[in-house]
């Protein structure tokens, strides 16, 4: 079994380490549990703008100097804002790990949020919000999320035009003060590092970060599903379909069954959706099914894009295949393929250090502790045909949310 370490430091930071002695790089993720769902209702987009402004100046360095310092160690970095967390990603050569943590600490603990940088990042967020509509899949995600997850977890990280207009530097500073602290941090590390090295570096650099007692952000947030149909008219070549219904979350005992069920439905090219919608009928180029799991809940999604004349047939076939899964026999060989798909994908991607880091980060975020990959895969491998059928009875698709985007109002058959 892989060596996993996990602890919570006196400073409040929770960390997990996957020790991989022979790797050439170290990857780490810092999650600050202060995503879009923590924003005030009239300041949507705040967490995203804050995430983008963190590296634009610190008490020690200008934004350019900070970027140069990261480049001096060849760090590959990125920042992303999601509904529940702001996540900072980094991959470096092992000899630069300590320095990379130090620079991240400087950015998180001592940002200055220069006024001009705040204004620019608000303006860029406004532009990105408009640009979102030039990519049908991204736009569909924005349209369906509030219906799938409700007003908190369904927020889009880019916010809304009106709320972005209201954002000021004071809002960023206030949000940073109230939500950015060591106790809201989860740090996952993978690579040729010792857990003690990680602990020492984190304790050293984050010991005075934020006020103690700010441990909010660790509880699941309330999700609210809104069934129904919604069409967004737009002059496009294709009609884009999004369908969702409630499933289970990442830590739920039925989660491994949900993964396998999705594997049967949409795993690989032999999955039922690809086979029935694309291979047999040629109705689409893209069709897929997936799940999205904030802490404490989960939603199943299906999506497809087809020209308007093919839309109704595509929609009918997608739902028919879900129903067929519940009603007809599942071939044991089909089940086996879905399981193999999950296991093999995990093992091949496991060669990537950043993938191992991501797995650890997800475990800390969802379970609150690391779970050996062998344990998770064993649960997937134990799934039976009956488990899948029971799952489909327990979580039927009888209450749907359907969103369409495109040139034609779509009448559900």
């Amino acid at each position: 079994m892989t060596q996993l370490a996990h602890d919570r430091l006196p400073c409040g930071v929770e960390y997990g380490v996957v020790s991989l002695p022979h790797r050439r790089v170290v990857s780490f993720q810092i999650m600050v549990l202060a995503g879009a769902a923590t924003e005030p209702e009239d300041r949507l987009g705040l967490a995203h703008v804050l995430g983008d402004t963190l590296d634009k100046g610190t008490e020690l360095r200008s934004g350019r100097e900070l970027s140069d310092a990261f480049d001096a160690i060849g760090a590959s970095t990125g920042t992303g804002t999601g509904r529940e967390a702001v996540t900072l990603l980094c991959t470096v050569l092992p000899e630069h790990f300590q320095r990379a943590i130090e620079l991240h600490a400087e950015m998180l603990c001592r940002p200055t949020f220069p006024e001009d940088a705040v204004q620019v990042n608000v303006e860029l967020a406004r532009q990105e919000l408009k640009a979102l509509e030039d990519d049908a899949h991204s736009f569909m995600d924005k349209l369906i999320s509030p219906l799938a997850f409700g007003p908190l977890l369904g927020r889009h990280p880019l916010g809304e035009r009106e709320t972005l207009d209201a954002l000021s530097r004071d809002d960023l500073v206030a949000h940073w003060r109230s939500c950015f602290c060591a106790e809201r941090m989860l740090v996952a590390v993978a690579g040729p590092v010792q857990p003690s090295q990680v602990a020492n570096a984190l304790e050293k650099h984050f010991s005075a970060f934020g006020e103690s007692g700010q441990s909010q952000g660790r509880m699941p947030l309330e999700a609210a599903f809104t069934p129904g149909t919604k069409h967004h008219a737009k002059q496009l070549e294709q009609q884009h379909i999004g369908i969702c219904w409630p499933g289970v979350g990442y830590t739920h005992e039925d989660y491994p069954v949900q993964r396998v069920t999705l594997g049967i439905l949409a795993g690989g090219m032999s999955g039922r959706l690809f086979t029935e919608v694309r291979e047999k009928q040629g109705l689409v180029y893209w069709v897929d099914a997936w799940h999205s799991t904030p802490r404490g809940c989960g939603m199943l999604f299906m999506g497809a894009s087809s020209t308007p004349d093919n839309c109704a047939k595509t929609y009918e076939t997608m739902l028919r295949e879900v129903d067929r899964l519940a009603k007809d026999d599942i071939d044991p060989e089909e089940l086996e393929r879905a399981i193999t798909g999950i296991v093999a994908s995990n093992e091949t991607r496991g060669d990537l250090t950043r993938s191992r880091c991501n797995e650890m980060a997800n475990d800390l975020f969802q379970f609150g502790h690391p779970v050996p990959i062998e344990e998770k895969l064993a649960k997937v491998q134990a799934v039976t045909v009956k488990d899948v059928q029971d799952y489909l009875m327990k979580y039927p698709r009888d209450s749907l949310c359907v969103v369409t985007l495109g040139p034609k109002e779509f009448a559900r058959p």
Partner: protein
Amino acid sequence: MNDPYTLHKLDNGLQVVIEEMPDVRSAAAGFLARTGARDEVRDLAGVSHFLEHMMFKGTEKRTWREITVDFDRLGGSYNAFTSEDRTFYYGWVRHADVCHQIELLADMMRSIIPEEEFNTEKGVILEEIAQYKDHLTSVAYEFIQEKVFAGHSLSWPILGHKETVSGLSRDQMWAYFRERYAPDNLMLIVAGKVDPGEIIGFAEEYCGGWEPSGTKTDRKPPEIHGGTDVLQVEKFNQQIVALTFPSVGATHDWHETASAAATILGGDNSRFFWNIMQAGISPHTSAYAVPYEDCGVLMLFGACEPDNAEKLLEAMRKEADIICREKVRQAEVDRVKNKRRTSLAVEAEAPYERLRQLMEDMDYRGAPRTVEQMLADVDAVTADTIADYFERYPINVDGHLASVGPRAWPQV
């Protein structure tokens, strides 16, 4: 260090290239067909890509269903893609499964292109074309290719046109396939935890009986056009502004230099990032060196609010002028090199990433390069080589300007 490569040529001309990676648990294998969109004639634009889809549709041994089922029995990931220069079919699996992966891919390379699947798949391709037309960046790239390489096969869209794909027959595709997918125009590439002797044995067993065609690839570099071209598409919100200039091809000594110059200009922590994006003019502006086998372009590419198009163009031109007139600072070069070292270290742990690099090196250079050799090429880049590059390939000239978006700008 020990050479991790094994190169072997079968009697029928099929080249086999293997990189051993003893520290990983997986392996990736792929067949490179040295044929792509630029090898098509105008009326058959899109045949390479359509054929790539049809290669999954049946062989003497397997139906399309059996092909997809067999891929999914192995798990991991698999796919194929078509570019201007080549078509590539690959799978990334657990190392113990690599022989099955190679057998399956090899079987696919002897497709029968089943007639009964042809029209259904044509529908899929037409949907793919429609999907691209709803995506601003894709529309812009196709428009730029069409104009910059006008009159040359590099100007065809990889997916083809709706008309050419609709008009394509199975017989036309079959003739193209017979000529271009012979073993003397294919290559089997494998990277990961593998035994080279075993792989060569599989290659002999599965591919040794294939007949060569003696096909020759006749490629000529295109003329790279300047001028201004505008595509007004009202359904989009943003405007793409792009400047394109001649650059070096993939095997030129200045290949890494061109790439470093583009990164200094338009990568992370670049001049574009600080002087254009962080000036609020555009949320995404970048610079890319786009190399082909025998030519290349350097592209400055930005998206903005339609009303900001003039400002974006002016800002890109200004930075292009400065980098041509004033030598870049050594610190800027060093930053690019440092990041490249990290990205190469990441690549070295991923069989699929190594497979892609091997494919490119074998196709363009005829020999693989180790990560250490690539690092040496990166280390050879200096402020002086960048200055020499811009003297030979200046970007403070007109170049080609493309504007794509809701605004009919500039007036031509």
